[in-house]
């Protein structure tokens, strides 16, 4: 790395954020529109909502609760207003977020005479005060080891496996060597490359977990009567030159570098410690990125071939492509142009050094295109039918 540190926000519980967001967190579907209205009234505030509520059961309900709570507890969030329709869920989420010692307040529709406008008015005042207080925070130098990267690829093409993913892998390797954390998911895109991942597993248990996760997804596809060709790779991938899931996977796993794989975590689960982890999770970008960010990733490295505008709202998302056509066209989407490597005008090592520098710069406050254009969203996967 060109610099051993970045400037971040040290939270009361010791974790480090690379942003200092005020979050309006709606934990029930009924209050989503009100959360968005409060967000519009307090420019700069982030909003996370869910369309779901009391019909969720079992693991599905647990995941929603865990992930929504994690968005509130996220290190990039400096203060949270939790809103919901009724007390039990709101109280639980608030109690969990309060363990981080960051400011958190709650508003419940039941306490506002079921009037969304009353909730809007009270919420807007709270959010406005939170914004003012949050703006008092200042960045401090922190060591690289406190960085936690999530890696994602979307709308990939063969340039992703050739250039963008290996570049990200090089940055991840340097971070892991420095004691940091990183995670990537998209289990179906390990299929065909799982032998390369298991060879890097830190233990036989981890290798078995990787194999089991891939087999489950493969069986899901078969049980659904799916021929993966046409689903993943999808039509855009295929038009761009990818053919089979094996080809896509072999390119995709390059974004995880070459470090040992410490374990396989579930969607939105925190990492047990430093090092590189896999997340057993869906591949579609909003669900995948949502899981990585809920696990605590402060910053996402998102590679693309032909372009993909989706970013996290909470974690700055650096868009990277090596496709010369895409990088010329998508100047306000792609944060890092690696087409010089594709066109043999620069070495992968030189480009990796430039990308490492950009990562530290963005971690220290430089805005990504996704942040400037407000493309961000943070969502939670569903695991089963609701009542």
């Amino acid at each position, binding site marked *: 790395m060109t610099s051993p540190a970045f400037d971040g926000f040290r939270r009361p519980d010791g974790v480090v954020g690379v942003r200092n967001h005020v979050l309006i967190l709606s934990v029930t579907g009924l209050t989503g529109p009100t959360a968005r209205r409060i967000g519009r009234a307090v420019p700069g505030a982030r909003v996370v909502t869910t369309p779901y509520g009391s019909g969720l059961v079992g693991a599905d309900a647990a995941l929603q609760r865990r992930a929504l709570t994690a968005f509130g507890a996220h290190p990039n969030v400096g203060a949270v207003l939790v809103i919901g329709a009724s007390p039990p869920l709101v109280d639980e989420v608030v109690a969990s977020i309060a363990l981080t010692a960051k400011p958190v307040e709650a508003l419940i529709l039941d306490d506002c005479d079921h009037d969304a406008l009353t909730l809007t008015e009270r919420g807007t005042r709270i959010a406005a005060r939170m914004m003012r207080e949050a703006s008092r925070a200042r960045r401090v130098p922190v060591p690289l080891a406190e960085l936690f990267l999530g890696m994602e690829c979307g709308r990939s093409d063969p*340039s992703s496996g*050739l250039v963008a993913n290996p570049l990200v892998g090089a940055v991840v390797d340097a971070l892991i060597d420095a004691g940091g954390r990183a995670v990537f998911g998209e289990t179906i895109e390990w*299929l*065909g490359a799982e032998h390369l991942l298991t060879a890097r597993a830190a233990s036989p248990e981890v290798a078995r977990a990787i194999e089991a996760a891939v087999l489950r997804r493969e069986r899901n596809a078969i049980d659904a009567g799916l021929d993966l*060709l046409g689903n993943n790779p999808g039509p855009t991938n295929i038009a761009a030159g990818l*053919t089979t*899931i094996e080809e896509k996977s*072999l390119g995709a796993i390059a974004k995880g570098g070459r470090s040992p794989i410490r374990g396989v975590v579930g969607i939105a689960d925190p990492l047990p410690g430093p090092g590189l982890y896999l997340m057993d999770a869906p591949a579609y970008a909003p669900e995948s990125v949502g899981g990585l960010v809920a696990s605590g990733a402060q910053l996402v490295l998102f590679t693309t071939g032909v372009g993909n505008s989706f970013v996290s709202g909470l974690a700055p998302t650096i868009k990277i492509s090596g*496709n010369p056509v895409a990088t010329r066209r998508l100047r306000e989407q792609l944060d890092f142009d690696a087409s010089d490597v594709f066109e043999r005008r620069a070495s992968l090592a030189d480009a990796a050094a430039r990308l490492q520098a950009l990562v530290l710069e963005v971690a220290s406050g430089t805005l990504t295109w996704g942040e400037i254009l407000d493309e961000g969203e943070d969502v939670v996967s569903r695991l089963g039918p609701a009542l």
Partner: protein
Amino acid sequence: MNWQATTLAAGDNVATVLQPIAAGETVAVWTAAGVIAITALEPVALCHKIALADLAAGTAVIKYGQCIGQTTAPVRQGGWVHVHNLRSRRAQAAGGQTT
């Protein structure tokens, strides 16, 4: 050094083209053993694959030094390798049914 296509590992029998290729064009291909020349039999779009050898139907197609699927029809050296003549060996429903 300039080349229009690249392999990713020793043993690859396809190369990724780094610029659009026209039929009849001579393509310089980077390989671990040095740059070789292949004549394209048909157009190959940016980032698509060109066969480096004659591949009989059912041959494992190798990229990244790994199998990415198998040919479903014979492909001649210089031919375009894509979903019309290559398919996955994984995640196929019983009986190899395709949708």
